[in-house]
Every structure is written in structure tokens, then in C-alpha cells.
């Protein structure tokens, strides 16, 4: 089975957001990167699916900078067989559609049976690229998956919804976006890291696609207003109710 896991590098959790001088982006000078949390689940699911099927290949596909291969190699250390990097220096300013278009152009050449993606990238929080890729490919899109079985030419997924858990059957090829709980991503072991050095990593220059939307300003969330102590003990209750009704307007 030919399986592709699409991943994105995102700033690591300890990154401090600082707008650039022109106010249109974030200052990336101090950023360290990691694979987006849900994309790690996608890689793990790709590897587990290959292991369950007993044959096949897992390709890790990303759109990113040419010098950002460490995180991609980590995916290979965790069981990916090869990687394709669509190199683009402006990878961070692409909108969801132009990212999806680039991935689709590459996927169309790969003869994939199953494409795994995270349900959302933890930097932009768009949750758009996965469904767009499926739509452009004309494949089923099963999103927010928390359980998956893959059989001959079809799959059965458990999907989290507002109302509860739905069980969905779909045909292959398909795009599956992964939700927390689907699996527990493994750690890159040292042997995996050594093996990853020898796995192929191909760089492909994607075609330029115009953005349809453009970030014009980045502002940090407003600082939280300082709290106020309205009084102490039972005597404070009237003042508290007063404040909740008239200031916070929540009662």
C-alpha cells in the first residue's frame, strides 16, 4: 500500500510570538521548529497502517524551506520510508489554498492509496488544507478521525463530531485527517535516527500559486486586564453580583 503522510513544521511550543517590524508576520529569528502535533499522529498512523497491512511504503510529504530537513528526518526516524520536500522560501506566507494546490500537484504524481494529514496545523489553526487536498483530488475526505481500519480498497473510520462518534465507511484512495486519540506517536529511537540518515529525501520545486488571501497585519492578543478584588467573605457577595451583572455582563 502506498501511503503518504503530509506534515508541517510549526514553531515549537516554547516560541515567543513577536510581530515583525512591518507588522505583517511573526519574527522567526528565535524560532525553533517541530512537527505539528496532529501531523505526528498522521505519521504514526501511516506507519501503523503499513505495519498492519504488512506491505507498502510511507512517504512523508511537506512544503517547507530547503534547510528545514531535521524535522522531516525525524519523521523518517519514526518509520517513514522516504520524504519529499516541496521547497519554498515563502512557505509560511502561503494561504491554505496555495499550500493545498502544491501538495495536490505532487500527490497526483505519487499514486497514493491513502493520504494522512493532521486535522489542523497548530500554528495557523486553519483546519483547511486537508479537506482542500481531498476536494482537489476528488477523493473522499474523512476528517477528525479517532479510529481507523483499512481493508481491501476501503476503510472504516471513527469520527468525532459534536453529537458523538460516527462510524464512516469510505473507498480508497482517500484523505484522512487525524484527531488526538487516534494513536500515541512513538519517539524517534536512536536506531531509527541512524537509519533515517540513509533514507531518501527528495527536494522538488513546486509551482508558484498566487495567494487568494494575504495577511496584512499581525497583532498580539490584548493583555488580560488585571483582576480586581471586590471584597472578602460573605460581605463581598453583593458587590460581586453587582460587578458580574453590570461590568462583566454575564449574569
Amino acid at each position: 500500500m502506498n501511503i503518504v503522510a503530509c506534515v508541517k513544521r510549526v514553531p515549537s511550543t516554547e516560541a515567543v510570538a513577536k510581530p515583525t517590524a512591518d507588522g505583517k508576520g511573526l519574527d522567526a529569528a528565535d524560532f525553533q521548529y517541530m512537527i505539528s502535533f496532529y501531523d505526528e499522529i498522521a505519521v504514526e498512523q501511516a506507519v501503523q497502517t503499513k505495519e498492519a497491512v504488512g506491505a507498502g511504503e510511507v512517504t512523508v510529504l511537506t512544503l517547507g524551506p530547503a534547510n528545514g530537513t531535521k524535522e522531516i528526518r525525524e519523521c523518517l526516524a519514526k518509520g517513514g520510508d522516504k520524504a519529499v520536500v516541496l521547497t519554498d522560501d515563502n512557505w509560511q506566507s502561503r494561504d491554505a489554498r496555495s499550500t493545498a494546490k502544491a501538495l495536490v500537484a505532487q500527490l497526483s504524481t505519487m499514486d497514493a492509496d491513502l493520504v494522512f494529514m493532521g486535522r489542523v496545523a497548530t500554528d495557523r489553526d486553519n483546519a483547511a488544507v486537508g479537506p482542500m487536498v481531498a476536494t482537489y483530488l476528488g477523493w473522499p475526505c474523512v476528517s477528525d478521525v479517532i479510529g481507523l481500519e483499512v481493508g481491501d480498497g476501503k476503510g472504516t473510520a471513527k469520527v468525532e463530531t459534536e453529537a458523538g462518534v460516527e462510524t464512516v465507511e469510505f473507498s480508497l484512495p482517500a484523505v484522512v485527517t487525524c484527531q488526538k486519540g487516534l494513536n500515541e506517536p512513538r519517539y524517534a529511537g536512536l536506531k531509527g535516527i541512524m537509519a533515517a540518515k540513509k533514507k531518501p529525501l527528495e527536494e522538488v520545486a513546486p509551482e508558484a500559486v498566487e495567494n487568494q488571501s494575504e495577511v496584512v497585519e499581525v497583532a498580539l492578543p490584548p493583555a488580560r486586564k488585571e483582576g480586581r478584588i471586590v471584597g472578602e467573605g460573605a460581605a463581598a457577595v453583593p458587590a460581586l453580583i453587582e460587578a458580574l451583572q453590570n461590568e462583566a455582563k454575564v449574569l
Partner: protein
Amino acid sequence: MDAYKQLDFFELDDQYSEDELMVRDAVKGWVGERFLPGVMDHFEAGTFPMDLVPELAELGVFGPTTPEEYGGAGMNSVAYGLICQELERGDSGLRSFCSVQGSLVMWPINEYGSEEQKREYLPKLASGEMIGSFGLTEPDFGSNPGGMLTTARKEGDEYVLNGRKMWITNGSISQIAIVWAKLEGRVRGFIVPTDLPGFSAPDHNHKWSLRASITSELVLEEVRVPETAILPGVDGLRGPLSCLTQARFGIAWGALGAAHACFDETLNYQKERIVFDKPVAAYQIPQQKFANMATDITCGQMLALRLGRLKDEGRFTAPQVSMAKRNNVMMALETARTCRDMLGANGVTLEYGVGRHMLNLESVVTYEGTHDIHTLAIGAEVTGIMAYR
């Protein structure tokens, strides 16, 4: 509290290869997610988290420089150093566990063992199926192990071992011990299964340092091992001392991890802790402490990195290792002490890591050659005059 951020003042990340950084980050992630949540309880209980041993093996941190054909990962020494650093960011006891397994047990078997010994033991030690310990120190011989009283005598096709070893990390939880004993007056190494008649390993209880690490005595009374148990490749004190050089290399890196942990925790704490309407970190005295600690850690990082590169080029020396172990461990201990103070009363609770690191480092400064013994080793190298005997 903010996520852990490792100080990198001189942008040394540039100096590591992609796979060295991958190894570091893999171990860092594991320590943060799997080890740190439970360490306080283990430290208080005086236990090592044995349930994590299979995960450590899966990560590959037991003997990572061991060749792949014997179950290792075949990594370079810088990667090994970074592993030690990240393990000791968790706890010196965790790093000790891996130092003993890798540098003091797997390394001598790989270096001085027969082909059969390598095939029999190394894969099991790498997979954590078997735990090893290293018995050199004795009740009356620590800094001067050459005076050891433990003996081996040949009887037929067996060696018979007698003696007592003290302060042996992992002693009572090991399946094999590398025991150093005198055979006809010469120090030799033996691979001793710990379930043999005459072998016992009572624990040292009541330690207030390295509590999340088991330390035991090894008592050998007429313990009989087959003649295939001797390490054939080395004869004399050079055997155990060369193992210690390997382990000290890892300690020089490990101490940096403990220092990083203390520094990061204290920096976060003092930036958030408000006294007289300002964060503590806004006052000049704490800033001087931070400036000193950041400088000391940075110097230690560079020392370790250079030592690692020299080692990988096959041209590091024992006095260089002495300098790095001595400097980095004392630096870490002083950093931990300073940080302990900077946390105020919170510095004396195990809810914060600094107190635990501070206590642990008191052992690290003593074992693998005390601070002063390394002082004398560097002194001997510089002056050409030995002052330690």
C-alpha cells in the same frame, strides 16, 4: 510555568549535525514527558523507575556508541554526550543508570571482551533485558583503587572471587556485575552473574543524594565463575580507569543538563515572582547571578563540545576529560546551590527540581574521581609532577 528552554547563548546548535540534534531532541522530549512527571515520587521513595527501562532501551540510550552488530546504535561520542545531558536534565540518577550500563559495563565488554562475551551480553544489555553494574570502589579504597583487597584465584577451570565493593550503582538490580579484582597481584575484570552462590548485594539506604538511583554493596564470598568470565583484553589498573574515562566524558555533559534544568526553572520563577512590585529578576543582585550562571553554563557547553569532537577524532586525553568533568560538575553544583537560594522557600521543596539536582550533584562531584582528585590530575599534567601519591 513556561516550557523548558535550554540556554544557547553562543548559538552552539549550529555546531551540531542534524542527527546529533535529532538524538538530543528525542531524549529531551522523552525525559520531559515520561520521566519528569514521576521523578519526585521516586526520589522521595528512594526508588528507580524500573518500569521505564524498556522505554529507555527502545529509545536506544543503553550503550548508544556500541556497534550495531552488537545491538547498539553506532552513534558518535557527541551524540552520546548530548544524550547524557538530556538524561541528567531529568535527574543525575537517570544519567547514572545509563552511564553505568553504557560506559562502565557495555564499553569494557566491547573493548576488552572476547567475541563470545560480546555476543552473549551486549545485545541483552542494549535491550535492557539485562542490567549491569561496575564494582571498583571498596570500603577502604576509593580514590586509590589500586590498593583494592578483592582477589581472584584460579582453581581448575574456574576463578574464585572474594572481597567487598562499596557504593555500587545498580548493584542489587543488576544481573551481571563487572568486578575488578587482583589476580596474582594484577587488577583484572570479571563478568560476574549476580545470582551465583556467595554473591550478595545489600543496598546503601538513607542516602540523601541520588535517591532515585540504587546504590549497593557487592559482597563476594568464594564466588566461582568459569574461566570464560575474565575480560581477556586488559590487564592492570588501566582497565577500570579507561572505563572511568568513558563515563566521565558522559558526566561532563550530564552535569550541563542538571545546570540547564536549574537555570531554566529559576529564570522562569524569578521572572514571575513579584517582590516589592517588581519581578525578582528585575533586581541587580539576581541579574548578576543570572549573568554569572549563563556565562558558566556557556563555558561548560563549549568545553564539552570541544572534548566531544576531540574524542570523535580519536585524540582526546584523560587530563582533558578530568578538566571537563571537574569544571562542569562543580559549575553545575554551584549553579544548583545558587538557584536553590533564588527560589526562596520553594527551593527546599521537591515540587521544584533545583533542590533535587543540588543534592544529586553532591554525589556526582564525588564519584568518578572526586573534584580534588581531578584537580591533582590536571596539576600533574600541567607541572609534570604527580602530587596525588
